[in-house]
């Protein structure tokens, strides 16, 4: 009986609050005393309670929400609200419960000339035995510099820093067949007008297919539509053109083919890159007609063998991919 009475009284006291001890007189206080704000206190308690409920909700949904369709939104809502209720409680505490004092104070001094002097003197006086100070500074610089360089040197092995021959290498060789993503070789008859095809060298595995120089975009134009420059004459196989699929601006794959159905009224055929809309004219050898690309799209020479399959006649007319220092200096190599 006494126990229950105790419990009830304690709970009531907990809820209602207990008057603080008589506050200290104003002059000895560090923080000003403000009158109690029971409404704010209750609000904070309520908010803390709501926060707990939300957090509990999160735990319950996590534990039992096996087939809940909106699992992530519910989880996010409960945990988010748990935080937000707690935040609101803190805001009420900040604005209504704790005193907001405005105190004035001196900034720290701009500098400490005395201490600066002592430090400077310490350093100077310690070095009275170093008579060749200039030389020592040089020596220290040399040792420290070279040591630092030595420590950094193993980083050179992170990658082929000095060997950029790979930029010129392609998996294409004379006679290599053009195949699709599943390894099936393309026949010239498969290449229809107004369509565009993804092609790789025969015999490349998935990893090799991801090399920039491997993938092609193959199209067919009417031979009388072609305006290939002199150095690209003969690169087509009766109108079939095999361009590098990698844009020469920033390396994205060219997967847009503008293929007019009714030529008189519609824009000319074009290969376009979706990243910055570099537009290449396939009839003219991949020249840039719009967009930021600074280099023509490389063209792979192709021919049709006796069985009707498409094969590479050699290598691209230039390195594949975005431009770099030597991209116009060398030809692509097998």
């Amino acid at each position: 009986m006494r126990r229950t009475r105790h419990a009830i009284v304690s709970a009531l006291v907990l809820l209602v609050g207990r008057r603080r001890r008589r506050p200290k007189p104003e002059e000895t206080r560090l923080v000003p005393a403000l009158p109690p704000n029971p409404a704010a206190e209750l609000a904070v308690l309520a908010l803390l309670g709501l926060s707990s409920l939300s957090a509990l909700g999160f735990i319950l949904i996590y534990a039992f929400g096996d087939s809940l369709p909106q699992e992530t939104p519910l989880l996010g809502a409960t945990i988010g609200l748990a935080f937000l209720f707690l935040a609101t409680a803190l805001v009420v505490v900040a604005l209504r419960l704790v005193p907001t004092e405005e105190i004035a104070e001196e900034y720290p001094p701009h500098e400490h000339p005395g201490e600066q002097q002592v430090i400077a003197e310490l350093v100077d006086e310690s070095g009275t035995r170093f008579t060749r100070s200039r030389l020592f500074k040089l020596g220290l610089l040399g040792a420290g510099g070279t040591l630092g360089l030595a420590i950094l040197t193993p980083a050179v092995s992170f990658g082929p820093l000095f060997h950029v021959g790979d930029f010129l290498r392609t998996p294409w060789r004379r006679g290599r067949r053009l195949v699709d993503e599943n390894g099936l070789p393309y026949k010239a008859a498969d290449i229809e007008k107004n369509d565009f095809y993804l092609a790789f060298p025969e015999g490349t595995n998935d990893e090799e297919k991801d090399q920039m120089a491997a993938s092609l975009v193959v199209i067919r134009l009417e031979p009388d539509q072609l305006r290939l420059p002199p150095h690209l004459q003969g690169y087509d196989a009766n109108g079939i053109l095999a361009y590098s699929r990698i844009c020469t601006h920033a390396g994205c794959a060219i997967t847009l083919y503008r293929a007019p159905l009714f030529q008189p009224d519609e824009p000319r055929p074009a290969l376009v890159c979706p990243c910055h809309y570099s537009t290449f004219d396939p009839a003219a050898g991949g020249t840039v007609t719009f967009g930021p690309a600074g280099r023509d799209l490389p063209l792979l020479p192709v021919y049709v063998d006796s069985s009707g399959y498409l094969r590479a006649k050699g290598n691209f007319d230039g390195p594949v991919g975005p431009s770099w220092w030597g991209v116009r200096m060398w030809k692509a190599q097998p």
Partner: protein
Amino acid sequence: MTRRAVRWIDQRSASAPLLRKTLRYLFPDHWSFLLGEVALYAFIVLVATGIYLTFFFVDSTKEVVFHGPYYPALDGQKMSEAYASVVHLSLAVRAGLLIRQTHHWAANVFIAAIVLHLFRIFFTGAYRKPRELTYWLGITMLMLSLLEAYLGYSLVDDLMSGMGLVIGYSVGLSLPFVGQNLMNWLFDGMFPGSPRLWPRMYIAHVLIFPILIGLLLGAHLLLVALRHHTQFRRTKAQTERTIVGVPAFPGQAPRSLGLMVGTAGFLFLLGGLVQINPIWLWGPYHTYSSTNGAQPDWYLGWLIGALRLVPGFDFTIGHYTVVPNPFWGGAAFPLVVFGFLYFWPWLERRFTGDVAFHNLLDRPRDAPVRTAIGVAMFSWVFLVFMAGASDRVNVTFGIGYVSQIWVYRVIVWVLPALLGFVTWWTCKELQASELVVHERHAAESEARLARLRRGDEPPGDPGALES
């Protein structure tokens, strides 16, 4: 109870004097001073959610076949382990998507808060002596955060971020003379690099950059505390020598805690209610695949705009491709912007001759030239940023893409100059009008005093103005 705890700590660390100073450290009371804190709290959420993510992510580009009956659209497809691990976390791990999305929203908000904080610092002159070092640490953190975020969403190896990665690679390639060597070195071979690339990116994202940012952040906050905050001249009591503010305890603490918990709350709310980067929809990345409408996250949008605006040319001398095209938009442009940010305190000192200590802040109107140049610079970057979205504007509103590009090419130079001038003029006018008001008040009180002395009017009566 409190006494016992404090005693225990002080006996073991001798830190009571420091604690006392810290508890009574003064914070000037202005809302714009809380922007840096928002960034800090977003960073904390990033680290916390990020640690969770590291327990699920697989940093490998090895090809696997995805077996996920819970997501038929990718079932049976070949993809990298990295991508598969993120799809799995998002769709098959309870609360995995929530934490992943919260992490990504936190990154977006983190950088946005830094930018707003930077605006406050710049337009109030808070970077002036003695706080240049603090400012430079902040700019460096901004740069590191951009790289860190880019690395973060590129790690997922989905179609969109893969396209972004190859573009970053191309910008690196475009560095004159050394680009190809540098990129070959960094990627361990030509793009898409070797199997060691992904662990490299991963370690950079979860260890190297967070530690760097953390250290700089610590130094940044330490310097702020040692030199104390700047303040606006809100009351007469606030001067270059006297700081007026709210002490850390009890006044500021619940505010800052509330802001921290509130930031976490908003971020988790977004993380659950608004989908971000649904990578299971984009599919895996291959060098031979791409999609229309690919965009980087907003904080790199200024770079895609620049890359699209530059006309198509490689700068060559003979056979030497000295400056490939992506350099201008992808490297030179951010270099100029960050160069401006870094050198600005020094430039301002040089041209105004102002080498004094400043603890008081300017209002933007108090420094018309600085405000004008800041507005011009920002509008330049902002217009380039807008240009990057012109294709979606074309799709949504029908305004031709090519026309937009040409218009932007002109206005990115003309408008900032114009806006800069208008800003300068506005600041001057605001100052002038304040001067007029101030002089009028002074004249009125002088006149009133004179009347009082002559005894023409009882005190306290404002009375009519004499002509």
